[in-house]
């Protein structure tokens, strides 16, 4: 009995039917968040600077998300890409204490992203042939070596005094510069979404979960990994460019030895604590780790812990990062993203439920991967 093909109503669509009240309620709930993002940095110069710092961290977090979350490759040397972006942007614009015209500034940002992408491509072409855990080792040594050899060249770091990076007049103020950084965040977010939704993104997830199976289904494993590495490098470079013009000075010291190593580990911590392959979680974690130091500084200043905090800033942030990292990997593999998931789902138009109908896609990131070294 060859019955006519029956068209069922799409079940998924049914649960996210857009009703006027639904949209209105969600818009109303989103309003305070939006105000927080847009108005809080307006309060003072410091708030604006901290907000730009958070934006930079979000971009690096998205960059780690593409590499670690989607592709399952770990990078312990990302400070090299961020630092290279900062170095290139400052040197390309290089107008001394005069403000550059917008075109030069844009070229600086573009070359920053391009340079880091090129270096990532070169490193990836060699290092991605190395399987599994060894890649973590190579990136660790690469990050330290690259920073220590290239960033210390006197012709590039302004004879060890730093390269000044003045902003163009249109975005000279702290708040305006923050808005520029925010626009770049949106750009990177868009790229991240595009990567994830495209054929490439599905290929990356497939090879992350099982390289051999992915290859058997025709995924160009090395090519896709290389693409992810390059995109990640470009984002990190862009973040570096924004970083240089945020402090209006490129200083190699920010990326060398201990501070560089610490930065690299912070980026990994952001990717893991945020939740692997979880965009929203990574963004939340990036904002948290960018703002935790200024907040602690303010908090310590209100109490009699001020001096203690000032002397031990570095170690306190180490302990905070480490405790969050360990509790995430041991107890809560989904990370921050898993915690905020019900709200994120509700905002995207689903019914509010604490039971995750997707079964937490992405929690298994790197779990089933063929990283056996």
């Amino acid at each position, binding site marked *: 009995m060859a019955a006519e093909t029956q068209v069922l109503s799409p079940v998924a669509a049914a649960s996210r039917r857009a009703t006027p009240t639904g949209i209105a309620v969600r818009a109303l709930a989103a309003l305070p968040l939006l105000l927080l993002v847009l108005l809080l940095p307006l309060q003072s110069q410091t708030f604006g600077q901290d907000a730009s710092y958070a934006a930079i961290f979000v971009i690096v977090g998205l960059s780690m998300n593409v590499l670690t979350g989607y592709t399952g490759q770990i990078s312990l040397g990302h400070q090299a890409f961020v630092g290279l972006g900062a170095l290139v942007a400052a040197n390309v614009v290089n107008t001394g204490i005069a403000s550059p015209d917008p075109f030069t500034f844009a070229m600086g940002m573009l070359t920053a992203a391009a340079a880091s992408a090129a270096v990532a491509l070169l490193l990836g072409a060699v290092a991605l042939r190395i399987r599994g*855990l060894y890649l973590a080792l190579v990136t660790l040594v690469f990050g330290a070596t690259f920073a220590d050899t290239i960033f210390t060249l006197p012709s590039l770091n302004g004879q060890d005094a730093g390269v000044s990076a003045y902003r163009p007049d249109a975005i000279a103020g702290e708040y305006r510069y923050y808005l520029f950084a925010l626009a770049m965040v949106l750009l990177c977010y868009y790229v991240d979404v595009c990567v994830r939704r495209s054929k490439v993104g599905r290929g990356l997830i497939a090879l992350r979960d099982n390289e051999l199976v992915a290859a058997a289904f025709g995924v160009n494993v090395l090519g896709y990994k290389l693409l992810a590495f390059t995109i990640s490098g470009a984002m990190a470079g862009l973040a570096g460019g924004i970083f240089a013009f945020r402090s209006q000075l490129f200083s190699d010291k920010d990326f060398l030895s201990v501070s560089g190593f610490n930065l690299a580990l912070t980026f*990994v*911590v952001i990717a893991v604590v945020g939740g692997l392959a979880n965009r929203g979680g990574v963004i939340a974690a990036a904002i948290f780790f960018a703002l935790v130091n200024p907040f602690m500084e303010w908090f310590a200043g209100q109490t009699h812990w001020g001096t203690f905090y000032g002397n031990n800033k570095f170690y306190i942030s180490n302990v905070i990062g480490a405790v969050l990292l360990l509790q995430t*990997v041991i107890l809560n593999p989904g990370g921050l993203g898993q915690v905020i998931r019900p709200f994120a789902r509700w905002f995207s138009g689903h019914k509010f439920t604490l039971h995750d109908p997707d079964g937490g896609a992405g929690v298994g990131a790197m779990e089933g991967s063929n990283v056996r070294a």
Partner: protein
Amino acid sequence: MTSVLAGASFDASNNILAPLINGIANGAAYGLIGLGLVLLYKSNRIFNFAQGEFASVGAIVAYVFTAGTGVLPDLPYFVAAFLGLVAAVGVALLTERLVIRPMFERAKVILVVGTVGVALLLIGLEGLLPYPKAQALPTIGQVFGTQDFVGRISNIPILYQDIAKLVMLVVLAAAAFLFFRYTGTGTAILAVSQDATAARVVGISVERISLISWGIAGLLGGVAGILLAVPPSGITPGGFTGTTLTVAFSAAVLGGMTSLPGAFVGGIALGLIEAFANADFALVPGLSTVKQGAELAVFVVLLVVLLVRPRGLLGREA
């Protein structure tokens, strides 16, 4: 170019001897840290990024008991060193119980991220605990009340400390090698690393084996820390992780991640490569003009070994 010309006017043998002796001395340090890395890779198939901090913990605990700060008893050097070793083993065992054991079934990458977390936590705690910072343990010469060096070879002092490092490295590498080759526990560790389920089936307690292998790694780390935390470098929180650990990893990879004698060979080889890359005369033209020539050389060696011969000089499996 000037450095090449300047080097030519010196005694040529002196010029080669200095990096040779320095290289072997530094290489012993890389080997000592590398030994613990190899042991954990051999038994658990993971990279332990906390190995440098096991060493720091051992050195710091030994230091606070010899320093005579007044708060803690001022103990003889060898008692303090023993307490340092106990502390290092204790931290390693805690790491196993609290971090590694709950993640037995997880991917190795996650375990490695866990060890990074342990390293970060230990660095932070070492920095926050109240004890005099930037100090150093006494050298072997100071402990025995003699001069610091045995003698001089063309005016380069041969330090007792370096000899102790080298001897300890050889002894520990040999002991660990024999442990894996000839004892039941050593064989059981290897069995677990190859197939944990099969090992469990024949009656090996995987949990106990894991605890033992981490304990030994802690002991090796503690020995390394106590021997390396002497002037001029001394003890700083995270000092071993920042400087020694990356090179020790490269050394272990060069020697072969699965070979304990390889840790010795790789350590010495990498120490020599570093020393010659930074030497006054140029083996590779222009390398000594780069600010971090030694670091660059280490990176290139690591990359070439992993691409050409991933099992290293003495390792057996890929």
